[in-house]
């Protein structure tokens, strides 16, 4: 594709079906330079398959709606340039595999919202000043700010083999919510203790550090190194390290409200 006027024909191999099953169907469509996968899908939807279901909203990589698997890799359709794909062979587009299928490219991600409700919310310490305000170090806020970039596209959940291949949704909350817990747990004002749930009900031990979640994150959050592993280490502090426990017998943890 050498100019915006030049169009070439490509083949999109799109999964069509619902919760009961489905199959890939091929669609030939013209594309031009600058188009993303979602543009091509929309063109197919408009011209060849009006009944095709595809969820989208912002087309700017910020709403996290158009998550799918493009040539087998979880990604946002609106952020995947066609020029970055081999166009001489069919481009495979299928729905996420870690969630129930609704129709075509649309999956039911409501499990994630139910998981989020289970997580203990932010609980700040007593205000530092009489006017009800707090004082925080910029560096401490910066550390958790990375986690707040999450757009909840759930691509990290999709690629996580614990959910995707082993379907352990009952036992493991997935990388998205480990990031959420990290944002709360490492917050300089937060006083809540989420480690017991992290170890048991949230199943952090199921993560075997494949770093697949980090690789697919469209916001480039360093999920594994900055969120999951530090949380694993905090769980080790609390439950698996006899020296730390001994240390705490001599020097108990400060009450966060006394800071």
């Amino acid at each position, binding site marked *: 594709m050498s100019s915006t006027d030049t169009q070439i024909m490509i083949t999109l191999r799109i999964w069509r079906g619902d919760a009961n099953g489905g199959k890939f169907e091929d669609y030939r469509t013209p594309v031009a330079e600058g188009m993303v996968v979602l543009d091509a899908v929309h063109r197919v939807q408009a011209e060849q398959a009006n009944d095709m279901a595809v969820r989208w909203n912002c087309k700017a990589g910020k709403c996290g709606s158009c998550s799918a698997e493009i040539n087998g890799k979880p990604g946002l359709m609106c952020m995947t340039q066609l020029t970055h794909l081999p166009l001489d062979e069919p481009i495979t587009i299928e729905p996420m595999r870690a*969630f129930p299928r609704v129709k075509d490219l649309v999956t039911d991600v409501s499990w994630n919202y139910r998981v989020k409700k289970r997580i203990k919310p932010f609980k700040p310490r007593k205000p530092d000043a009489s006017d009800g305000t707090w004082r925080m170090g910029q560096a*401490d806020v910066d550390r958790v700010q990375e986690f707040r970039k999450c757009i909840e596209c759930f691509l990290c959940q999709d690629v996580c083999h614990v959910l995707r291949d082993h379907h352990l949704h009952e036992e493991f909350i997935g990388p998205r919510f480990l990031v959420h817990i990290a944002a709360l747990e490492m917050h300089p004002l937060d006083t809540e203790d989420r480690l017991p749930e992290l170890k048991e009900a949230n199943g952090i031990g199921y*993560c075997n*550090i494949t770093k697949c979640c980090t690789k697919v994150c469209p916001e480039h959050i360093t999920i594994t190194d900055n969120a999951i592993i*530090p949380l694993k280490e905090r769980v080790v502090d609390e439950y698996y*390290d006899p020296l730390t426990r001994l240390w705490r017998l001599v020097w108990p943890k400060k009450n966060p409200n006394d800071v």
Partner: protein
Amino acid sequence: MSEARMSLPVARGFGETTRRDKWWVTPLVVFLGLSAFIVYSTWAAFQGKHYTHGPYLSPFYSPELWGESPHAWFGPRPSWWPGWLIFSPALLILWMPGGLRVTCYYYRGAYYKAFWADPPSCAVGEPRKSYWGENKWPLLIQNIHRYFLYIAIVFIFLLAHDAWKAMWFTDPVTRSTSFGIGLGTLVLTVNVALLGGFTFGCHAFRHLIGGKLDQLSTAKIRKPLYDCSSCLNRSHMAWAWISLFWVAFSDVYVRLCSMGIWKDWRII
């Protein structure tokens, strides 16, 4: 929650994927790289000879607690050592740095994929249906990582001392000792620097030095140390591989010099 009733797509079979790239290359390279290191280090550890050359001591044999070389701390093989049990100074100590690598977060992720296909690669089907990750025994033992870190930090100082000793050469005729730098000195110095980069960028070190604090900015000493560790940690994979290669190369260098196949090049 009623997640058990969720109707999910059937999990794919082993190696099944719609990925078009050569996803198998990375796990294959990891498999071959780690296998080569395990085979070589095991062979080298069982040799029990050609691990010193002049002031140089192979890092596979350091610290040499008991042994035949002048580097040995407590003299030759102890009399209480069972005669039927093979003896090599390396076998006494190699499990310690080995333990750090086996329980290292980077290596764990890498060898779970390359050796156990759990998963073989991201978004690629697995060979087994059951999975318990690091949530239960035996992999629960990985939480011991920080204890291997404590030992590894001691090893960094010991290897730094070896690099220092590798700067003092004894004249074979006069038996006097003088300062010098040979190619082996550089090899052993680079080795300790690379191992330091790997060890002090370790996730457990990063946590213990400051990551565990929510108000890190108030910790005047720990904050800069945490920042340094975080900087190393960003390239932890690279440190892991380069230091792994170099520690094996350091042994090869000392071994081949000791065998007379390579000649140590004296720079100063």
